[in-house]
Each structure stands twice: as structure tokens, then as C-alpha cells.
């Protein structure tokens, strides 16, 4: 956990830190560049719109390879991995996710030069979406 910079790593659940480690190993991500767009308040945790974007020219020499998304306080933190290519022209992906409770969503971007970026966004959830 100490390898992840703050504040993106601040108060992360051990399961989330482990899930991130599983993907990036011992490498240290930098803050920024990857952006998470989520509603600040989600009335229904069953379907929360999520957009990830990364600043990148998306050329063969310089592009985003993947973005991994985690929900810190879901029963399992893994949400999705998006794998990008220069054929996309722009680094973006949209989907809808389930959030069991109010929590932070975390994105980790892997660039073609091996650099890693991390960011997080908080969503306040009125009705949880993991269906007990």
C-alpha cells in the first residue's frame, strides 16, 4: 500500500489494494491523467453510469493500453478492465456499474510506455446495488 501515492491510496480497503497489486505488481502509479466520471450521488446503486477517459494521443508509439476499475467497498473490488488500442483514436470507455454502498471508485491506467496513473472518485449511494 505504501507504494501507492496519496490521496488515491488513502484509506483503501486491503482487498482493493490486493486487487490492484495483482494487476500492476510492485510498480507505483502516479496521480492523474486518468479521469473517472460518475454521478456524485447515485439514487440507485444497481446502475451507476461510469465514464473513464485518459489524456493520450492514441498513436502506435504513445497510447493507453488498459484501464482497470475498482469499487473499494463492493463485496469484490474488481469492476472492469478496458483494453484500448490506437484504432480507437481517443481513450474513453462508458458502462454502468453496481455499487453496494457509498464508496470510492478507483481507476488505474496502463500506458504503452509502461507508466501507470491512478485516480479516484467518491459516489454517495442511496440504495445499494449488490442485492442481498
Amino acid at each position: 500500500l505504501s507504494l501507492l501515492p496519496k490521496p488515491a491510496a488513502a484509506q483503501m480497503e486491503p482487498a482493493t489494494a490486493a486487487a490492484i497489486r495483482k494487476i500492476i505488481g510492485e510498480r507505483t502509479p502516479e496521480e492523474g491523467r486518468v479521469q473517472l466520471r460518475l454521478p456524485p450521488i447515485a439514487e440507485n446503486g444497481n446502475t451507476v453510469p461510469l465514464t473513464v477517459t485518459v489524456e493520450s494521443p492514441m498513436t502506435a508509439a504513445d497510447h493507453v493500453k488498459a484501464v482497470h476499475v475498482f469499487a473499494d467497498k463492493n463485496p469484490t473490488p474488481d469492476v472492469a478492465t478496458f483494453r484500448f488500442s490506437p484504432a480507437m483514436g481517443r481513450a474513453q470507455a462508458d458502462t454502468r456499474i453496481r455499487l453496494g454502498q457509498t464508496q470510492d471508485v478507483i481507476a488505474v491506467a496502463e500506458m504503452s510506455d509502461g507508466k501507470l496513473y491512478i485516480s479516484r472518485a467518491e459516489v454517495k449511494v442511496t440504495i445499494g446495488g449488490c442485492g442481498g
Partner: protein
Amino acid sequence: MAAPIGQPRVRLPAQIKAGEVIEIRTLISHIMETGQRRNQEGQIIPRDIIKSFTCTFEGQPVFSMDLHPAISANPYIAFPFKAERAGNLEMVWTNDAGEQRKLTQAVRLAE
């Protein structure tokens, strides 16, 4: 038995110019059973989700996604694509049981 996978739907802009970055929007109906819920007898309902989506253009990878149970029912997936030339987009959705739905979407460029 795996839950049914619905017919996928894909939307592209009506007019596409060469070199334009367009948005491809997809939707497929599926229950996305998380494996966390219990039935009335208190037994866990087994996990059954669409676990992967891939999109290629004329055989070249464009975009793919690994889905986890935290993706909402009836997965909506949208992503950009730089339309350099006409051709076919091939999209494949795969569930936990390995069953697939495929869809071929032609990209036509405006004159």
C-alpha cells in the same frame, strides 16, 4: 444452466466521415447474476455473467473489456473508434459458460 443472452444491439452515427472518431454504443440483455444473492431457500444463486466483450475491425483489435459482477444487468458498453476506412466491425460477448453472441456491423463512410 446459463441464463439466456439477448440479441445485442449496436449503434453507430448515421453519417461517418473518413478519419472521424465516432462513438460505438452497445447493449446486450443479460441478468448479470453476481453470485452474491440467495434464493428463498437461502442457497447462493450461482454467478452467471457476461465476462468479456471484444471488438475488432477487419481482424485488428479495437477495444475489449473484462466484465466482473459489478457491471449492471444488461451491460451497456460504449467506446470511440477512428473510422479511417470502410469495413466490418466484429463484436463478441462471452458468458461464464463460454457461450457467445456475435454481431457484425458494417462501417460505411459518407462520400
